[in-house]
């Protein structure tokens, strides 16, 4: 477990992300941040508030509401010596930038026979239950994970967010970094000293012996809460966070599955054709002879996210639903 053994300094996920950006902006003059209302407003979520004061509007740049434009500009700048961090306010707006990401950024290195590269980061958000309705609540990380040439980071703690974002900025490839907007206030320990976390290394968030719960982003927090409840009825759950959907640390997932023999995969993207399907298949393949039951999947319900709170809350996994699934999988009652 890479849980920080730091000095007890506790900050929020939002602060961790801002710190990572500030450190990389300080370290490398080719890094810049561009997006709608990223400067004075510090993004719609106020996460970058103050960044422009240190680095100025030349490096923390407010853009028009032109998502394909700022993404394309990022691709071109990345190809020619810059390290852009493009901010797409809501992950739902991924739909607008898909050509630039999928047909351009993802393919340029390969198509050029390795001559060109696109070292850019696209930061965007995910996560429902904010009462923001169907066009501001989706978790679309599976879309990018599907495309060869793109890396996808999906952190669950302030510590991971900071270390992974720094790696993402230093990476030579396009990296999409998904922040759950409901987790910006989540607190966690983050050491003062600099550190990075390599992309593609999973982290065991809690050790256990009876069932493995592979979870991503805010679903890690949901699963940890479920694990507490499971412990009360004598079920020991292991929580594994892949931290990236690509590169994917298959070994850590498979080894945990071999250890516990039962696996649930929990992710906030749509369940069908989603991240849970891929992870379940990797685990089923790698741990087949060790499994006592089919790998179970829990994703967002396959519906546009409804506005009404009573409906929206039904669409995502919760500590209770994960608990029930794990209990059933372990044959407890």
């Amino acid at each position, binding site marked *: 477990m890479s849980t920080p053994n730091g000095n007890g300094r506790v900050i929020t996920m939002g602060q961790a992300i801002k710190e990572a950006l500030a450190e990389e902006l300080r370290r490398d003059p080719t890094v810049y941040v561009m997006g*709608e209302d990223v400067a*004075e407003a510090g993004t719609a979520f106020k996460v970058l508030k103050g960044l422009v004061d240190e680095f100025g*509007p030349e490096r923390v740049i407010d853009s*028009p509401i032109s998502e394909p434009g700022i993404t394309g500009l990022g691709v071109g700048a990345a190809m020619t010596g810059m390290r852009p961090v493009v901010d797409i306010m809501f992950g739902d707006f991924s739909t607008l930038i898909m050509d630039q990401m999928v047909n351009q950024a993802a393919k340029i290195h390969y198509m050029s026979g390795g001559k060109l590269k696109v070292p850019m980061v696209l930061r965007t958000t995910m996560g429902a239950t*904010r009462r923001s*309705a169907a*066009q501001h609540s989706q978790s679309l990380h599976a879309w990018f994970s599907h495309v060869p040439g793109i890396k996808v980071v999906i952190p669950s703690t302030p510590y991971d967010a900071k270390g992974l974002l720094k790696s993402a900025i230093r990476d030579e490839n396009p990296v999409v970094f998904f922040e759950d907007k409901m987790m910006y206030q989540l607190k966690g320990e983050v050491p003062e000293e600099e550190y990075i976390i390599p992309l593609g290394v999973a982290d065991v968030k809690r050790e256990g012996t009876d069932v493995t719960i592979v979870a991503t982003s805010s679903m890690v927090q949901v699963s940890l809460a479920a694990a507490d409840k499971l412990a009360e009825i004598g079920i020991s759950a292991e929580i594994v966070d892949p931290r990236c959907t690509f590169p994917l640390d298959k070994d850590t997932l498979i080894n945990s599955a071999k250890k516990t023999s039962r696996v649930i995969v929990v992710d906030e993207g749509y369940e069908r054709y989603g991240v849970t399907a891929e992870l379940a298949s990797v685990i089923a393949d790698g741990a087949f002879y060790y499994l006592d039951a089919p790998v179970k999947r829990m994703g967002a319900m396959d*519906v546009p996210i409804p506005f*009404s709170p009573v*409906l929206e809350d039904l669409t995502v996994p919760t500590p209770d639903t994960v608990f029930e699934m794990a209990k059933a999988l372990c044959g407890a009652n």
Partner: protein
Amino acid sequence: MAKAKSSKPAGKGAGKPAGKPAGKEDVEDLLQMYEQMVRIREFEDKVNELYTSAKMPGLAHLYIGEEAIAVGVCEALNSDDYITSTHRGHGHCIAKGAAVDIMFAELLGKAAGYCGGKGGSMHIADQANGNLGANAIVGGSAGIAAGAAFSAKRLGTGQVAVCFFGEGALGQGLLYETMNMAQLWKLPVIFVCENNMYNEYTHYNETAAGTLAGRAEAFGIHTEEIDGQDIRVVNEAAKRLVERARKGEGPSFLICNTYRYHGHHVGDIDRAYYRPKEEELEWQQRDPITILADWIIGQKLSDQSVLDHIQADVRSEVARGAEFALNAPYPDPSEVDTNVYA
């Protein structure tokens, strides 16, 4: 984003309404427009109250200050004409004929709402009144409005479509693709740009190069820029453009200079870092409701007691509407996966 310089509230656009004395019918029209603007104002004040008292889930983008545009344009339309709306859509929705109680129900996520609670503030659609929906994607409805105009033309219905959007949407490429086709094919669509000067927290001077009018003019689209605070100016312009569209003369672009009094959304309270307080106060001196009231009284078309009466009626209608919505039931959980497919 530098702090915005205070901009003059006096609408840049010309378009003085004709000074002719109003006839009886005009007076009724004016009072109707007055009532609709007051309805929007009262509705929005109540929305803000529901938000601040934690009775409304999520956020809402208030239209207060911009009422003359929605009402001035929609009063020039028939009820079967189409509109598409934005994240700041309550005004358009009311102006096109929606009922406030059903709107409140939607904002509170109740089953009785226009969308059964599934849409919320940013997605109210009122198909019976030609409102094809608010849209939470900036510029996202440009194609939809043009598509509605395309249908009207193909089906020969004589309907027109109005696409409302903020000046922030001028950053979106889709708008220009759509304008090009609308002009090529002479579609009966009116692009109404509500220029309240801010894209969220950034002044439009920092996001739009060149002139706003020049964008549509480049396609040869008939363009007018007007004072969006004076409903008589807005309404006359809208009538002109609707008539052009119905006659087959094609699309037009109407820029209405305006201001939102409140924050970008109800939670945007501390605004001094992006727009000066003096600017806010200055614009409130040109309040669309007051401007029309002053005209009505000044021209002796009606008297203050009539206006007061309208206001009182609307206020109690809004209070009843909110009460209805607060007491209305939430949708049944089984609704969660209905309507995914038709």
